[in-house]
């Protein structure tokens, strides 16, 4: 069966520090991968999605970047965090782009101080 792992679960970072969140999927090949951000009490904002290795689509201009160095690995990064980067970051995968169920990781809660 397919599983998705996301880490770290919680982190507190100072403004201006770098960020790296990792997500891996097991039990499937060539998944479509997504990074979402959820501000407190708000909906989910799509940040990036990827249909294959090295292929990244960015949805909103921001302080973040994403990379997909391997088929089932998706990384969210920042060189210098801002206060506004605080939130709940969710990695997800789906078997097809724009269709089919989204399977979410447990999420990473980032607090920037």
């Amino acid at each position, binding site marked *: 069966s397919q599983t998705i792992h996301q880490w770290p679960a919680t982190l507190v970072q100072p403004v201006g520090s770098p960020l790296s969140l990792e997500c891996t999927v097991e039990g499937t090949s060539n998944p479509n991968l997504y990074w*979402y951000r959820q501000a407190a*009490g708000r*909906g989910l904002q799509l940040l990036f999605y990827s249909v294959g290795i090295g292929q990244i689509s960015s949805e909103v201009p921001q302080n973040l970047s994403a990379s997909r160095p391997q088929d089932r690995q998706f990384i969210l990064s920042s060189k210098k965090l801002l206060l506004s980067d605080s939130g709940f970051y969710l990695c997800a995968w789906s078997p097809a782009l*724009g269709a*089919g169920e*989204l*399977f*979410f*990781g447990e*999420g990473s809660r980032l607090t920037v101080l």
Partner: protein
Amino acid sequence: GQQVMQIPQYQHVQEGEDFTTYCNSSTTLSNIQWYKQRPGGHPVFLIQLVKSGEVKKQKRLTFQFGEAKKNSSLHITATQTTDVGTYFCVGATNKLIFGTGTLLAVQP
């Protein structure tokens, strides 16, 4: 850009009362999905609707997809405390766009 709005943003009901959340897209959708997110958790898939006018039921939950494939609703009959959480619709075109969500609180 494509937007998916939900109303209400928040609903507080007494246990046993019914609950409905409505979802509206600015564009025609190929399908719509519904997710539930418990407080502190991640969204969990509930259902997908594909056909115009489609209605699906899961126990006390009834999902509808509008004839124009631009709106949808989720109705919960006789709410229970386990129904607490945020319900999101997700509109699909060439990508999946989350609605703004409806937070449901159920008072025992």
